[in-house]
C-alpha cells in the first residue's frame, strides 16, 4: 500500500518535481505514467527512501519514508531508472551480492540468485560478464534481483526505456513473474495497459487521474481518434498535428477524407487533457 499526501519536492535550483501530490495505490501492479519530467522518478526515489521530500508525507505499507526509512528498506526492492550492471561481473555475482546486501546468507543468496536467473531465461548467460549481455538481458538481471529478494513491494523505474520491442516483451514477461506488489513508472502507454491493474497519471508533479485502464478510458467509449495534418476547428493541436475525437460511426467519413484513424489508448487521456506524451 502506497500513500502520499500533499507530497512536495522542490530541488535546490528552485524547480518543483512534485507539487502536493496525493495518490494511493494498493493494487498488485500500479503503473505511474507521465511524460519525461512529470515527476515519476522523483516520486519513486522518495518512496524508495533514496531521496527526502521537501514537505508532505509518503507511506509505504503504513511506514513513513522519512522517519521509518530503515523498516521500509527491509521490505522493498527498488530498481533505479537506467540502472546498469558492473560490466566485469556476471549476472549471478551481482544478484547474489544484492541478496547478501539484503541480509541473506551466502548459501541462500546463491541458490535464490540462480533460481531467479534461470526462471527469467538467463540460465546460459548468468555466468558471463554482464558487459557481454544484450540490453534486455541486463534489464532482466535487475528484475531477477526483485524476483529473488521476494520483497513486499518492488519499485521499477522505467524498466524498459531504451529497449527494442522484443527485449521489452521479454522484460514484461519477467515483470509478470514477480510475486510482490509492483509500482512501476513508464511513459509507454502500452506498457501500463499490459502490465498494470491500476494506472496513476501524473503531470508537472501532480496527479491527474487514477483508476483501472478501463475506467480511465470509459469516457471515450464509442469514440475513435482522428489525426489531421494541419489545423482544424475544435481540435487538439500537437505541433503540426491536429487530433479530434469522433463517434466510431463517423470513421468511414474521415477515412474517405484521407485522415488517419486510430483506436483509443491511454495516451488519449493525456492528449485530451492537453498533455502530450511519447508513444
Amino acid at each position, binding site marked *: 500500500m502506497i500513500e502520499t499526501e500533499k507530497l512536495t519536492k522542490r530541488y535546490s535550483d528552485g524547480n518543483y518535481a512534485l507539487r502536493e501530490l496525493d495518490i494511493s495505490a494498493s493494487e498488485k501492479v500500479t503503473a505511474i505514467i507521465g511524460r519525461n519530467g512529470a515527476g515519476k522518478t522523483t516520486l519513486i526515489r522518495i518512496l*524508495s*527512501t*533514496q*531521496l*527526502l521530500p521537501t514537505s508532505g508525507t509518503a507511506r509505504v505499507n503504513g511506514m513513513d519514508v522519512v522517519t521509518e526509512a530503515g523498516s521500509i528498506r527491509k521490505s522493498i526492492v527498488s530498481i533505479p531508472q537506467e540502472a546498469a550492471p558492473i560490466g*566485469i*561481473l556476471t549476472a549471478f555475482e551481482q544478484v547474489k551480492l544484492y541478496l*547478501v546486501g*539484503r541480509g541473506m546468507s551466502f548459501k541462500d543468496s546463491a541458490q535464490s540468485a540462480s533460481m531467479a536467473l534461470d526462471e527469467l531465461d538467463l540460465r546460459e548467460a548468468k555466468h558471463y560478464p554482464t558487459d557481454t549481455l544484450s540490453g534486455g538481458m541486463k534489464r532482466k538481471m535487475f528484475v531477477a534481483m526483485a524476483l529473488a529478494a521476494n520483497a513486499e513491494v518492488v519499485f521499477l523505474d522505467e524498466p524498459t526505456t531504451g529497449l527494442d520491442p522484443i527485449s521489452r516483451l521479454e522484460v514484461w514477461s519477467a515483470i509478470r513473474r514477480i510475486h510482490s506488489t509492483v509500482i512501476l513508472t513508464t511513459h509507454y502507454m502500452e506498457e501500463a495497459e499490459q502490465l498494470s491493474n491500476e494506472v496513476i497519471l501524473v503531470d508537472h508533479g501532480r496527479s491527474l487521474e487514477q483508476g483501472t485502464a478501463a475506467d480511465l478510458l470509459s469516457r471515450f467509449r464509442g469514440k475513435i481518434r482522428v489525426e489531421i495534418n494541419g489545423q482544424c476547428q475544435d481540435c487538439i493541436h500537437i505541433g503540426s498535428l491536429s487530433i479530434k475525437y469522433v463517434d466510431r460511426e463517423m470513421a468511414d467519413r474521415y477515412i474517405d477524407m484521407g485522415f488517419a484513424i486510430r483506436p483509443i489508448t491511454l495516451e488519449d487521456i493525456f492528449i485530451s487533457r492537453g498533455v502530450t506524451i511519447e508513444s
Partner: protein
Amino acid sequence: MNLKFTFLLAWYYGLRTVGRGPSYIIASLSSPLTLLFIVFIISRGTLVKYAIVGGFIGLVASVALSSAGDAAFMRLQLRMQDLYVASRVNPSDYMLGLTLSYLMFSLPGIVLYSILGYFENVFTLPDVLALAGILALLVVSTSSISFIVSSSIKHVRNVWGIAGIMSVVMTVLPPTFYPYTFIPKIAIYALSVSPVTPAAVLTQGAFGLSPLMTMEIPVILVETVVYFSLARYLTRWREK
C-alpha cells in the same frame, strides 16, 4: 554492519575484477614503476630504496585516490548507490567494501614491490609489520578522501579528471619517492594535509632510510580518524 556484504563486494569488485581485467594491474603499476625508473636514473641508483619503499605508499594511495572516479561513476552512471540505499546496506558497509576492493587492486603491485624490496635487501620483519600498519591506515584515510570528493561530483564528465588530479597531487608531491629530508620541515607540515606524507615519512624512518619523525605517528592516526568520520558524515547516501 553487514560484513558478509562488505567482503563479498571486495571479493567480487576487487579480486574478480583484477582477475578478469589484467589492464587494471598494469594501470595501477604504471605510475609507481615509472617513478621508480626515473628515480633510479636520476640518482644513479643511490635512491632506489626510497623509491621501492615509496612505491608501496604511492601504489596504495594512488589506487585509493583514483577510486573517487570509480565511486562517482557507480553512483552517477550505474546507479549502484541508489540500488543499495533502498536495501539494508548502510553507507559504512558500502564504503568499506569498496575500500577493500581498491586494496585488492593494489595487491599485484604490493607483491611486485615486495619482490623488488627482497632483492634490494630493504626489509626486516619489524619493517614489514610497520609497513602493513601504515598501509592499512593509508588505505582507510585515502579512500575516505575519495568518498568525500566523489560524493561532491555532480556530473560524470568530471569524474575521471578530478580523480586523476587528486591522485597525482596527493601522491607525487609528498616525499613518497625521495627522502623527506630533501625538503624544508615547513613543507612537510604543509604537505601533511595528504595522509600520504606522514605515511611516507614514517615508512622511510621505519626502514632506516631517514631519521624517524615520531610526530608523524599521531598525525596519520588523527588524519585517518578525521577523514573517515568526515566521509561517514559528508558522503551523500540518501539525497536531500
